[in-house]
């Protein structure tokens, strides 16, 4: 005699826009971190490359969070204008969505400021990493002068600068972690959104994607020194390894969970779920590490060490980071009700 049955609730409350938003939030925070690291090293070593990396870091971080904010709004099914009421409406401080929205807002302001301080006024440069100012110049209307003056007037120095740096890094980390906590807050109901493992997974994934994006763009636009590319590439590899370990642990815990965990595993090991998993692991973890290893072994003169291959490798890392978010949103399942 059957002892119990399972009642499965609905699935799929979130769509691809949420996945994109989580990805962009992660890569934005990661990019900011890369910019901050480059800035720190740039203060200690005299290599122009670091400054380029920083500028691209702020710019890309800003760009991705702006697009990300738009995709965040795009997933809402309510009346379009209503989301803009969030400053007065988001009052539930037990909800990561409310907290996170404020993190996004303040982070956006900070990264915008850092970007402007790094590319306008006395910090202006003609090379491609000064892109924000070049774009504003095209707009005209004396806007460039306005922003230049504003940047110079407000640019912090001394202890204030330290504060801004630290706050920025804190917000960047918060940004990535909150995207994980948003999911894992209901991890008690959705086994895939493991409360302990999701935050480190997202931080690692976001950071590695951030490194990949910023370094690839800087290398391409500013012909970044191969040594710097290599050093950041190694950092990326290390983060990827950490990411791999966390992901493996997460998948393992699913195999020992209850009915929903088991069914999630089924979803991940068949059909489109399997494709996503294989795609994500290959693109985000295995292939980049393999390419890096090959590059190490074959040396800097080989074909494999070329910029194109390195760029492709970084591209895979970014793709993998996106696929991870897609996987987490689309294969997630809620616990069933046990019916006896």
């Amino acid at each position, binding site marked *: *005699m*059957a002892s*119990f*049955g*399972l*009642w499965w*609730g*609905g699935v799929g*409350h*979130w769509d691809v826009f949420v996945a994109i938003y989580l990805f962009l939030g992660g890569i934005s925070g990661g990019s900011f971190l890369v910019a901050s690291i480059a800035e720190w090293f740039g203060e200690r070593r005299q290599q122009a490359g670091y400054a380029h990396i920083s500028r691209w870091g702020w710019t890309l971080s800003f760009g991705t969070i702006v697009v990300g904010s738009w995709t965040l709004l795009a*997933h*809402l*099914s*309510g*009346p379009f204008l*209503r*989301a803009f*009421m*969030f400053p007065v*409406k*988001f*009052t*539930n401080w*037990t*909800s*990561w*969505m*409310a907290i996170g*929205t404020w993190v996004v807002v303040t982070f956006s302001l900070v990264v915008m400021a850092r970007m402007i301080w790094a590319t306008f006024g006395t910090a202006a440069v003609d090379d491609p990493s000064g892109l924000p100012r070049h774009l504003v110049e095209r707009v005209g209307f004396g806007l460039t002068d306005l922003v230049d003056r504003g940047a110079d007037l407000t640019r912090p120095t001394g202890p204030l600068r330290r504060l801004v740096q630290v706050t920025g890094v804190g917000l960047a980390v918060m940004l990535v972690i909150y995207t994980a906590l*948003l999911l894992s*807050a*209901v991890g008690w*109901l*959705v086994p895939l959104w493991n409360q302990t493992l999701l935050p480190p997974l997202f931080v690692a994934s976001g950071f590695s994607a951030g490194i990949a994006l910023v370094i690839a763009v800087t290398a391409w636009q500013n012909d970044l020194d191969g040594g710097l590319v290599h050093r950041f590439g190694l950092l990326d590899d290390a983060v990827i390894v950490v990411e791999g370990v966390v992901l493996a642990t997460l998948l393992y815990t699913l195999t020992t969970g209850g009915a929903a965990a088991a069914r999630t595993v089924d979803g991940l090991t068949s059909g489109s779920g399997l494709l996503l998993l294989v795609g994500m692991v290959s693109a985000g973890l295995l292939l980049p590490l393999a390419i890096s290893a090959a590059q190490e072994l074959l040396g800097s003169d080989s074909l494999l060490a070329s910029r194109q291959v390195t760029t492709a490798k970084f591209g895979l890392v970014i793709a993998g980071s996106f696929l991870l978010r897609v996987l987490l949103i689309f294969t*997630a399942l*809620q*616990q069933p*009700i046990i*019916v*006896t």
Partner: protein
Amino acid sequence: MGEQWGFYFDSDKCIGCHACSVSCKQRHGRDPEQDEWRTVTNVTTGEFPDVSSLPVSMSCMHCSDAPCEKVCPCNSIQKREEDGIVVVDRDSCIGCHYCGWACPYGAPTYDDGGIMSKCNLCIGEGPGGGHEMPPREEQEDGGAQPACVDNCVGGAIQAGPVSELKEQATTEAVERFEQEPANVIVEANRDDTTAFPYEA
């Protein structure tokens, strides 16, 4: 603080007819193809001939510790002090669907203008009906009988102040209820309800 309201469900009496789902939708003016606020599912187990197919009727359980209320960024979802009924303020809901992930019972639906709507224990009519309505009253005091209770053919669903529901339930069901966060008393199965080789 008023008396908490809840549901009582006796699966021994549920015949899986879905009259509760239909009655609910009609009370609240919802089209046939819209998502249900109260869903009936047959939980089927086993292999022929050792099979069982137990119908279960599920709606918002007006949980004592409502996870939907905790995650809603706008505080659109409230568990009312007066009667414990969990209602949504459709004027502030932005349709983020977070409550959908938080609810174990699949109660939130979003196909009324993209904004969340769900069972409001019939303190009002229509999506959002219930927000800021006066305290829930029992039928003898003029309150509307919940639509699902009104037309449950088998008499499997009851609703009311929890103290009154407890009086109708078995001890085992009440004990189980008091350990769980949901505001529904689910009756235990009769031992010999399901059909198998007949014990003389």
